[in-house]
């Protein structure tokens, strides 16, 4: 790695964490559990989603262990079904959906727009409690025997043919859904109504634009999955018939309602990550993001188009050929805004002064892996090839490339980038770079073989497979072990850094953005005086002018 770095830390001999900050302002457990401070709520979320991530990760480990051998020998097939179901439910609803918005979004959005808090702080806290309630319900479900329908709850399997805990899992997802709705609602109101003077829409950091787009999705799409869960519950308990062919119902109706949310859900998951990438790429190329307007509008475009493509998850399920045609065409459309972003980020790098600190390493990983994942999505959106590739490991690889290679890497980039702001301390750079590289290697070993497996025809959600697929599965499991190490390391060194990390100061990355103009960790009220925004986003000249004026102050005072 390059020894060039943009990090500028204050003199460690004299630097101290500011005495008054949001962490020290109040003490005691109630000050955390009853807080209305968006930053404390973000920390609460960070702890909880990390917890659920490792549970989901342990389930992933069990899956990969089972798949080391062609036979279903580690666990009963029914148990395997339960393991991958809970892996999906926990990772999607309790990790990916809230990951960036509820942690980084909550922490940063008010600061980035120059506000003291979100518009509805108590609703924000309620969001966290709903998330915890849903999460604990999910854990309870695992304890009492789990559910084996797959995270997609496909009817009529989930309504008429299984005896497992569909209702409790459904309730857990329902409750977590409201957590997501309230977070999104809060963000939309805040971004519209609480921007500081001078902070026009087109001076907002792209991180805010990305969260705005994701929040619209959260508000409009999530209620539909809520009603679909209610319908499943009533179908299971009373037998209302909406999904029951013997009474005239159509099982596909559930899938329409379910995927109407679950497709926008993938954009809810990725858009905030893309927001992180915009910030990191700009900072570590020392350049404004190329084509700011295009990137901002493409976020909204992804959100809007994302509503029109859901049935591409249902091509082989029995929808009409005409619907297949319509949705396949619309799916081609939704790829365009994502591609625009990748192009714009690449042009941001061109002629920039690039350095390779950890957030930037994760960002490079994101750009490569998300591109691969996105391109394979085109194979799946094309109905002719989808018929062969769907429900195989090709799909599994596709969504893990975009979600893990994309979203999770963006999340880690963001955590590392804003760690000094959140905690006041720097993480250790060398080991974190190592962890990033280990993660990248482990990821590719785990999921690239799965593209090949899928093309060769290995079905997904099967505990056993033909013996000729074993070698690739062994590769994949080996990669998963490396990946696990890559994810464990950050937990260890980030916790270490809380006590022993270097004092970061206000702006170790020399980044633009209002959050970097305040102390680290910030005050509870974020700003001493209401900021007034008088420069464009990513304005490095303005930043330079600031630094020169500060120097002049110091030299003239002395």
């Amino acid at each position, binding site marked *: 790695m390059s020894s060039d770095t943009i990090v500028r830390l204050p003199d460690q001999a004299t630097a101290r964490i500011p005495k008054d900050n949001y962490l020290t302002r109040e003490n005691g457990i109630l000050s955390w559990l009853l807080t209305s401070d968006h930053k404390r709520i973000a920390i609460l979320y960070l702890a909880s989603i990390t917890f659920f991530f490792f549970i989901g990760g342990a389930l992933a480990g069990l899956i990969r262990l089972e798949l080391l051998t062609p036979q279903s020998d580690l666990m009963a097939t029914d148990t395997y079904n339960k393991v991958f179901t809970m892996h999906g439910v926990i990772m999607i609803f309790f990790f990916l959906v809230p990951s960036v918005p509820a942690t980084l979004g909550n922490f940063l959005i008010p600061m980035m727009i120059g506000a003291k808090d979100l518009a509805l702080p108590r609703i924000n806290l309620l969001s966290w409690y709903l998330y915890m309630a849903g999460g604990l319900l999910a854990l309870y479900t695992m304890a009492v025997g789990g559910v084996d329908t797959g995270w997609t709850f496909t009817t009529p399997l989930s309504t008429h043919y299984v005896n497992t805990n569909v209702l409790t899992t459904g309730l857990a997802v329902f409750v977590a859904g409201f957590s997501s709705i309230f977070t999104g609602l809060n963000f939309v109101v805040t971004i*519209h109504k609480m*921007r500081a003077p001078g*902070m026009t829409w087109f001076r907002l950091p792209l991180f805010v634009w990305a969260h705005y787009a994701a929040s619209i999705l959260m508000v409009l799409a999530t209620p539909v999955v809520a009603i679909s869960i209610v319908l499943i519950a009533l179908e299971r308990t009373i037998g209302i018939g909406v999904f029951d062919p013997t009474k005239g119902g159509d099982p596909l109706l559930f899938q329409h309602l379910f995927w109407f949310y679950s497709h926008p859900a993938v954009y809810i998951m990725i858009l905030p990550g893309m927001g992180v990438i915009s910030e990191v790429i700009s900072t570590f190329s020392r350049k404004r993001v190329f084509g700011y307007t295009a990137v901002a509008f493409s976020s909204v475009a992804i959100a809007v188009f994302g509503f*029109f493509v859901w049935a591409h998850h249902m091509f082989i399920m029995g*929808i009409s050929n005409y*619907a297949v045609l*319509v949705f396949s065409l619309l799916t081609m459309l939704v790829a365009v805004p994502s591609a625009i972003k990748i192009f714009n980020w690449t042009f941001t790098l061109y002629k920039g002064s690039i350095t390779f600190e950890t957030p930037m390493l994760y960002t490079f990983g994101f750009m490569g892996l998300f591109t691969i994942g996105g391109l394979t999505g085109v194979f799946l959106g094309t109905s002719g090839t989808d018929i062969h590739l769907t429900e195989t490991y090709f799909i599994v690889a596709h969504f893990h490339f975009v979600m893990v290679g994309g979203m999770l890497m963006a999340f880690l980039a963001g955590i590392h980038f804003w760690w000094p702001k959140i905690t006041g301390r720097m993480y250790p750079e060398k080991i974190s770079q190592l962890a990033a590289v280990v993660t990248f290697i482990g990821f590719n070993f785990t999921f690239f073989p799965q593209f090949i497996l899928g093309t060769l025809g290995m079905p997904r959600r099967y505990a056993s497979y033909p013996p000729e697929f074993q070698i690739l599965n062994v590769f994949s499991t080996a990669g998963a072990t490396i990946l696990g190490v890559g994810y464990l390391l950050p937990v260890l060194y980030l916790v270490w850094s809380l006590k022993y990390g270097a004092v970061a100061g206000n702006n170790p990355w020399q980044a633009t953005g209002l959050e970097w103009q305040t102390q680290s960790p910030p005050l509870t009220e974020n700003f001493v005086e209401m900021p007034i925004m008088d420069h464009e986003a990513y304005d490095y000249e303005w930043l330079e002018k600031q630094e020169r004026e500060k120097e002049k102050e110091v030299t003239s005072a002395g």
Partner: protein
Amino acid sequence: MSEPNEHAHTIVGPRVYVTILFALLVGTALTVWASFIDLGFWNPIIALAIATTKATLVVLYFMHVRYSSKLTMLTVVAGIFMFLTLVSLTLADYISRAWGSW
């Protein structure tokens, strides 16, 4: 400040509300009366048209959207648009499943 707040200062008075009330009552009577007449495939169209007119009156006047900011209007339109997307794209599948049999 962020967005100009226009709506708080227009106080809508009783006269407007009474007018709308009567319009809604008339609409209700109309739609019940129309449902007793055999108009073939026009029946549901008329019923929905009257319902939509009533809903529009409630949204514009009782809910003050007529006197509110463009953002409020945009929010209402966005909700309606999303609902229509859900219905129409889902129906695109159902209508085309057995061409001609509907």
